[in-house]
């Protein structure tokens, strides 16, 4: 029940801040901030449930209510360690998203926060929905507000980016819907019990060809969201044109729903087919790592550059998931978290730079260190994180993924390791172009404000903590090895 309340708080907060903005925009901001903070606190508090629960591998919160009983659709939400970690990430980045739009959004404030909170509601719904139709609803609900965030508060090419984002993801969603229905009928015809419940559908025996096609429907939807390389086309545009908080949510959370979907649905529902398709997916993953890194290197638009680094980093996630290895899987979860933090931080920084310089072109920046030493220092931290240096969380994540993948796919992991070198190259280039070198801007630029410092400090502390003490996270997702027969030490 508490899970439903969490989503309801976000939905209600969104409506409230829309109404409140008519009185005063400031009130709307505070309402949004308080709502997300409340959710973060609830999620932290839920850790006590987790601690109290004897069996660390299972679903310690599970709530089911009737919705459309005639079709076997129920309102089923549940949470395990994996969902919990993702929810924490959602609300943590949610707070930062509210904070970083504090000054940036000057018009239609109420509607902006409405959309932001509803996107967050959709995302958190995705992470806890255990009914396929409920999952699909949430999957779509996070899409529409995001679309509005892009087309209303985005940059010059926002219309184009918005269409592309919406249409790409919608193709995947609808194919997934077909797959969900096919699965529903396959299961129903076998057992006589027609239901969309995740736990019932888990044990559906299927013909290999049928399973392959149904799995492909799911996989395409998640691959577009992740994004896997041939489907990544929407990402640079959407990330580049979205407002800062939009990019933060897109990179930090929306991409993670793709990874979550593969881990939660594709692997357990279609174990054999997933194994069969694994080499192909690893190939795609490695291609994504290299291709994303190369393209990131050649970008001159700061936000597009960061967007392509996401493509590269998500390649690691794909490789990790499909190497079916417990260490790799732990690396994947770490990567989901740390990429959310580090890339989110880079996007926030790009937003701050844009606020000050009114450009995203790194050729027009340069020498910013002299006027903004504090921001430069933080930028170094996060570019290092993105490049995967030890002490920072990303190192653990990528190291685990490569270590896990090496056992089964040595060649591929060696190629993927090249991605780490490439990432150092593009990160350093970005740092050098923006903060070092010739100074292009003569007018004085303010260094970061107290509010911005809070945002960046929160991100920096968390990424360092994740780098030094990853064990708690690894513990909470230990049970992922039980959802898949092939996952073992």
């Amino acid at each position, binding site marked *: 029940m508490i899970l439903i309340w969490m989503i309801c708080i976000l939905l209600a907060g969104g409506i409230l801040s829309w109404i409140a903005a008519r009185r005063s925009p400031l009130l709307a901001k505070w309402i949004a901030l308080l709502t997300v903070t409340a959710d973060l606190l609830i999620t932290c508090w839920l850790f006590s449930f987790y601690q109290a629960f004897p069996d660390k591998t299972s679903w310690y919160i599970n709530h089911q209510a009737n919705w459309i009983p*005639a079709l076997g659709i129920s309102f089923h939400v549940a949470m395990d360690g994996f969902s919990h970690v993702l929810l924490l990430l959602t609300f943590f980045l949610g707070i930062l998203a509210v904070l970083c739009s504090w000054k940036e959004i000057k018009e239609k404030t109420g509607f902006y926060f409405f959309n932001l909170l509803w996107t967050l509601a959709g995302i958190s719904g995705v992470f806890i929905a255990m009914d396929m139709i409920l999952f699909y609803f949430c999957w779509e*609900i996070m899409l529409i507000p995001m679309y509005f965030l892009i*087309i209303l508060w985005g940059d010059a090419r926002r*219309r184009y980016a918005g269409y592309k984002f*919406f249409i790409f993801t919608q193709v995947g969603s609808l194919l997934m*819907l077909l797959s969900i229905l096919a699965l*529903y009928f396959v299961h129903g015809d076998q057992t006589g019990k027609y239901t969309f419940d995740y736990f019932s559908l888990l044990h559906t025996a299927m013909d290999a060809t049928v399973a392959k096609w149904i799995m492909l429907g799911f996989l395409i939807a998640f691959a577009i969201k992740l994004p896997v390389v041939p489907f990544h086309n929407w990402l640079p545009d959407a990330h580049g044109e979205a407002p800062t908080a939009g990019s933060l949510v897109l990179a930090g959370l929306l991409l993670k729903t793709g990874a979550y979907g593969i881990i939660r649905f594709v692997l357990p529902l279609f174990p054999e087919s997933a194994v069969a398709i694994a080499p192909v997916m690893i190939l795609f993953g490695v291609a994504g790592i290299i291709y994303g890194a190369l393209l990131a290197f050649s970008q001159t638009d700061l936000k597009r550059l960061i967007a392509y680094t996401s493509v590269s980093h998500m390649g690691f996630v794909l490789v990790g998931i499909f190497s079916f290895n417990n260490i790799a899987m732990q690396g994947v979860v770490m990567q989901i978290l740390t990429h959310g933090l580090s890339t989110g931080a880079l996007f926030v920084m790009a937003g701050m730079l844009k606020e000050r310089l009114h450009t995203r072109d790194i050729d027009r920046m340069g020498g910013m260190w002299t006027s903004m030493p504090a921001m430069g220092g933080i930028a170094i931290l996060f570019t290092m994180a993105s490049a995967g240096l030890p002490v920072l969380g990303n190192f653990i994540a990528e190291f685990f993924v490569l270590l896990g993948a090496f056992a089964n796919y040595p060649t591929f992991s060696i190629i993927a390791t090249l991605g780490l070198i490439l990432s150092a190259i593009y990160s350093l280039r970005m740092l050098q172009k923006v903060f070092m070198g010739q100074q292009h801007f003569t007018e004085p630029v303010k260094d970061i404000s107290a509010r911005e410092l809070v945002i960046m400090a929160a991100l920096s502390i968390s990424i360092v903590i994740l780098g030094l003490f990853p064990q708690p996270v690894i513990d909470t997702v230990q049970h992922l090895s039980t959802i898949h027969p092939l996952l073992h030490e």
Partner: protein
Amino acid sequence: MNELQLSALLPFMVLAMASVVVILLIAFRLSHTVIQVVGFLMMCLVVFATWYVRGALPQEIPPLFIVDGQAAVFTGLIIFSVLVIGLFSYIYFEEREENPKEYYILLFLATLGAAILTISQHFISLFIGLELLSVSLYALIAYLRNRNNAVEAGMKYLVLAAMSSAFLLFGMALIYMETGSMKFSGIAEQLAKVGSTPLFLMGLGTIIVAIGFKLALVPFHLWAADVYQGSPSPVTAFIATISKIGTFAMLLRFAQSIHLQQYPLAVTIFSVIAIASMITGNILALQQRNLKRLLAYSSIAHFGYLLVAFLPGNDAGTEAAIFYLAAYSVTLLSAFGVIILMSSRQHEAEELHTYDGLMWKRPIIATVLAISLLSLAGIPLTAGFLAKFFILSAGVHQAVWLPLIVLVLSSVIGLYYYLRVINALFSTTVSAEAIPKPVHPFFHISTYITLVIMAGLICWLGIFPSLTLEGIRTFLLLH
């Protein structure tokens, strides 16, 4: 005809009386407002009569009619739509000064025609219903004859509808020649004995042409955009909802009676038509800058989707189709309601740029339009999504994969133009059009309230469909 049979026909008799009452009111020179209110009450009476006689269902009135649960559901939908359209008509025609009184006679006659289609089980009653509907529509379409495009649209509809009637008659004649019966059940019996012959299939084919024309399916869709654009907006809403609901109800009953889906040829033809409609409708809508034309093409695509539910020919398909029609009519009516509210005396609010920045100027009706467009696009939390979901689910169960894949991909194309309208609504450049001052505050406000209720209904159907589904199921059991 016994008492029960007579009572089963009660709603239809009340509906027929409505036109007569309006004629009398006009003869006594009563005002538009009185006619409007009396018309509204008469329609409420029809609803009440349907409710009153529900215990007597199903009732066969041989040889022409059968009043069963399915007919009741479709009639209910038709009456609901005409209630809303009648309300919208008031402010629309009052703005335009032309004498709108005779309009209501035609409106109710056309409704009667559509209602008769839902209960007919005989070629004669079918033809009478269809002609009643068509002939009233000729006049309705060209009702504002001084306006641009009105007469053109009326003529187009007249010529093509007359031709389709000819096709229909020819098809009926062929089938009659082969089977010796005009009653659907008689035809079915004869077919079971001798099987289908080439002549019968030819007759079936020509009937499909006529139905395809009425439902504006590709390749019989050429009239749709022009007629939608040229007719007064309430009439466009009428064509898009009631006329098509009636025709589809008739198609459904005919198909059920003769087990149409057991003829592979017929299924192939319908699949091809469905696929062509979905693709053509969505592609042609892409570049439209006129909202009414856009909705015309989108409705072509939507009836393509509907045919996918019709293809399996089972109960799930019928249920899905009825839910789809309900969701579609509510959605489309609210979209047209917004167009009507936006229209002024000088011009029809059909150009897309009229809607630029409407969200910041008139947030309520802009929200209604946005919700109805999202519903047409089939986004979750709206009725349109669940409607599409039921169709997909009926199709997946019967494994009609090709139409399903086309449905999915073409509705992605469709997203683009719905998003374009939504983009216009949220655009930052606010269109300079002044908000017209309402001439009739009472009707203006009630139209507003209706629109808000309809938008709520779209969301309600999209989130809690259980009640509606159960209702449809209980009614469908009455046969």
